[in-house]
């Protein structure tokens, strides 16, 4: 029996407990998602955008997996009624949330690997050997900058009754403003600038450079730096938000909403 915090949290709080359901949901759900958006883009924007949209959505699916699963764990705590016992322990809420992040992060990376295979077989999008290192770096940066967002959203769930609205809304905004389904250039000027300052946008731009233009490391470095800086900011915000929410919920006594 393996009993570290990681395996125990996984067993206690994660949706997919065996390989069969895991694969069903991590192979089929993304696949259907890609097919749907690919068909939409193919008939509206034209066949030349097929790869564009598939790559965008593969990376979007990572974001989706990461954020939903960070949120889901805390929601399970609410459903089980275990939240007060976690929060009332000497380990701070923030520390618990950070420690648990490892699970969705691993899931997200697996999702990416599975999806890379899927899109290779179905859309013939290949990842060359030289791309692996820059891609890995970009993916880690994206994950880093989105963990903050995930923590903020799930933190709101401690205080507010329904966290799904925030969750769906932010996922919708990522689909619109991060260049997932269409190039950023079609956004109005002011909005494009804002779009470039939210997490995920720059990382995705970098990934597109690597896969479609076989870009070298130094071409993508600016994207990485930018994504990391945004990530640091969201991380700091997330720490601030959780600390504030913790105090707020202790003051208002709304910690125990179901």
């Amino acid at each position, binding site marked *: 029996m393996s009993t570290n915090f990681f395996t125990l949290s996984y067993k206690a709080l994660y949706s997919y407990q065996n390989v069969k359901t895991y694969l069903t949901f991590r192979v089929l759900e993304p696949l259907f998602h890609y097919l749907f958006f690919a068909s939409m883009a193919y008939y509206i924007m034209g066949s030349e955008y097929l790869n564009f949209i598939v790559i965008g959505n593969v990376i979007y699916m990572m974001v989706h997996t990461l954020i939903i699963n960070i949120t889901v764990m805390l929601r399970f705590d609410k459903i089980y009624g275990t939240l007060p016992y976690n929060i009332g322990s000497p380990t701070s809420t923030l520390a618990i949330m950070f420690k648990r992040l490892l699970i969705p992060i691993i899931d997200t990376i697996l999702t990416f690997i599975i999806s890379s295979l899927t899109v290779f077989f179905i859309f013939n999008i290949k990842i060359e050997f030289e791309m692996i290192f820059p891609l890995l770096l970009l993916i880690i940066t994206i994950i880093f900058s989105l963990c903050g967002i995930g923590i903020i959203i799930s933190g709101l769930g401690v205080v507010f009754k329904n966290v799904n609205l925030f969750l769906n809304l932010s996922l919708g905004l990522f689909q619109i403003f991060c260049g997932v389904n269409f190039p950023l250039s079609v956004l109005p000027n002011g909005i494009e600038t804002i779009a470039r300052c939210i997490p995920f946008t720059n990382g995705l731009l970098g990934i597109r450079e690597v896969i479609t233009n076989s870009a070298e490391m130094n071409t993508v470095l600016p994207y990485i730096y930018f994504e990391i800086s945004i990530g640091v900011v969201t991380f700091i915000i997330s720490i601030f938000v959780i600390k504030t929410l913790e105090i707020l919920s*202790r003051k208002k006594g709304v910690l125990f909403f179901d």
Partner: protein
Amino acid sequence: MSSIIKVNNLYHEYTIKNNGKKEKKVALKGINFEVKQGEVFGLLGPNGAGKTTTIKILTTLLIPKNGNVTLLDKDILKSPGYIRKNINFMLGGERGIYNRLTPIEYLKYFSLLYKIKIPDNKLMELLELVGLEKNANEETIGFSKGMKQRLHIARVLINNPKIVFLDEPTIGLDPVISEEVRLIISRLSKKNITVILTTHYMQEADDLCDRIAIIDEGEIKIIGTPTFIKSTHSDVKFYEVTCSNLDEVGIFSVEEIRNLAIKTIEGGLKLIRFEYPVTSTIKEVQKEINQFCSIIKINIRDVTLEDAYIKLVR
């Protein structure tokens, strides 16, 4: 012996929405009490009295609007970290357990949160204490309420707490299981662990608690040992008389006899129950009653905590 818990002028109000308008709802109106080390201290009171609110504040889950609380000589607002390490709590009911974990895993999980290393045999000992050693490696999803409640008690002991807070630990349990839980609780106090307990069962409080506070609408009505509460708050004794030839009209007219109930039992005999002021001796009562019936048997019952409680919060 010094007090391990000191509660001074504790005041709390919640903001609630009534028809869309924000309103203040006072839950605790400035209560005071102290608890000594090793004591089992009971908080009693009707629904909505403020018991759970008090426990949440003392366990650092809720920040009070006003008042001072010190646990283990530390202020709950200034050193919540230290306090959390040295206390533990359960909030009652069957919730608060991870369905898919086994009891051992559940305890392991919390030992990690409490930052302590506990060897497996120590965990087994805890499970033995609450009688779950046979289920140590079963998923808790199929556990009964009683098993879940007992698992909570095992969890509560995980960090060798000096104070434990048990909010309605026997809620919804059958009499036999409740008795087992009570036995476990009484064992805790023998280990010099201070226990704060809330319950709606008066007999349970009477059996377990060294001292009791009765709260109603956010105020403490009385505080003291069960014996003290019983003695000060009952001016009557309870009588049960088996008799024949009862003059029902006559007996109803006696002023001192209160809450009279009459029941016909076998052989045409009557059983009557009533309260009578404590100032009269049993001889005097017997004489009084004899005017209206022929007494076959007379019993006198002591005041229970329940009687005192009902008088207090009515």
